[in-house]
């Protein structure tokens, strides 16, 4: 479904991604882990064409999206939903306007039908009755839920999550993880999650890819990754800032 071939990306003289290749099958749940500032979000944005690589290919169902212009990409993006790190809600609109945005822009659906769909999807993300609230009135966890509702209302085939639990307390993080699993199972979507939350990674991923020093350093099932003896993988999973601590 998604295939990345030899992807390279630099910002000025700083190389972020240097020859990334992987493949994600339809219906699969893949978690990309790695250190902050390591290029995980940059990689995720390449999958949906928000960023253009310096070289390499991104194939969606065999179609390379790299040479496409913005208008051609808009058609491909109908297949995607994306939850941003900050939720990226439109702050000039209510929750209902945010969630129903895609349908309203499409102009093919009557207002009552949009309202019905918005109410159903808000119920699915455990936020019934919040239609008239403004994004400023919502907590961090609620904003993520509304962002997710906006991303999945048009039933995309692929949902991308950029650090879905960052900045949330463990209880809210747990509820967001459960919500991601619920969306995956109910809508039967391909899921790609970028995170450095190890608990989330273990629960959400059928496969984990670890990004380290601009490359995919390790790949495997959650069990393989969490039982790895590789010092770099171990250091990240155990959250140890100084590798010498292993010696003591």
């Amino acid at each position, binding site marked *: 479904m998604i295939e990345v071939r030899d992807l390279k990306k630099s910002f000025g003289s700083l190389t972020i991604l240097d020859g990334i290749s992987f493949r994600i099958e339809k219906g699969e749940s893949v978690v990309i882990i790695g250190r902050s500032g390591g290029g995980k979000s940059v990689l995720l*944005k390449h999958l*949906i064409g*928000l960023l253009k690589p310096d070289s390499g290919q991104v194939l969606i169902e065999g179609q390379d999206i790299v040479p496409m212009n*913005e*208008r051609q*990409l*808009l*058609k491909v*993006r*109908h297949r*995607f*939903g*994306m939850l*941003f*790190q*900050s939720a*990226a*809600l*439109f*702050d000039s609109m209510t929750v209902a306007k945010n969630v129903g*945005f*895609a349908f309203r*822009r499409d102009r093919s659906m009557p207002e009552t039908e949009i309202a019905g769909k918005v109410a159903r999807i808000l119920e699915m993300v455990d936020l019934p009755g919040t239609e008239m609230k403004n994004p400023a009135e919502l907590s961090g966890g609620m904003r993520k839920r509304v*962002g997710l509702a*906006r*991303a999945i209302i048009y039933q995309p085939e692929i949902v991308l999550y950029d650090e879905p639990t960052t900045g949330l307390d463990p209880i809210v993080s747990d509820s967001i993880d459960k919500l991601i699993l619920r969306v995956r199972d109910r809508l039967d979507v391909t899921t790609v999650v970028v995170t450095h939350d190890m608990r989330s990674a273990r629960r959400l991923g059928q496969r984990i890819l670890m990004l380290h020093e601009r490359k995919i350093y390790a790949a495997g099932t959650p069990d393989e990754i969490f039982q790895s003896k590789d010092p770099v993988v171990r250091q990240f999973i155990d959250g140890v800032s100084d590798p010498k601590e292993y010696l003591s």
Partner: protein
Amino acid sequence: MKSWSNHLLAEPLEGLGRITLLARESIASLLTFKVAWRDLLYQIYFVGVKSQSVVLVTGAFTGMVLGAQTYFQFHKVKMDTATLAVVSVSMCSELGPVLTGLMVAGRVGAAIAAELGTMRVTEQIDALRTLATHPVDYLVVPRLMALHITLPLLTAEAIAVGIGAGYLVGVYLLGIDPTYSWYNMLRYTATTDVVVGITKAFIFGGIVALIGCYKGLYCGEGAQGVGRATTEAVVYSSIAILISNFFLTMTLGKLLHTL
């Protein structure tokens, strides 16, 4: 050496290229009718109605000062009744469009750059793109059209108010003969002066919208990036208005007087 030449040459050229592409994309969007009409209406309200006080004050006091200054000079050579003609021609072809353009650049251009810049740094523009919405269709075109429509109207208002205020100062404060003043004004103000002024305002509207949108869409990271984008939007659109005004005066003057 490289960064100096880069700063002086490459960056402005890159900016010019991006604004040109933005203009091309906006025209393409207009032709395919992908415009958000509701947002266009809101932008017309925001630019037109909300700029009323600024434009009225600018137009009125410019007309008053111009009337007084012209009278002080013309009075020396006994040409008092030509005062209103000078006010009228100046307001129609130069001061009306330029001052309205500058005031709107300060108010609306800054607001556009700040709004779009904040949307960019909070990933709202990326969110738009993931929701299969082109930022040019949704954000740029309504603002561009609103400024193209409202700036000529605001300019016409500033011209009318400026002439009216100049008349009041001239006739009631300085004692100029109202009948001859009015007659001379109509005699020396040609339709082409009004056409030149309104055409300029239409073009200045495009300058303010495109520079404001460009600075917002390509703004740097964080609060500092938004602040810089806002300042640059106002400074660059003001300079662009002043420079293009000279070329428009020369071109439109030649063009309309030969017709």
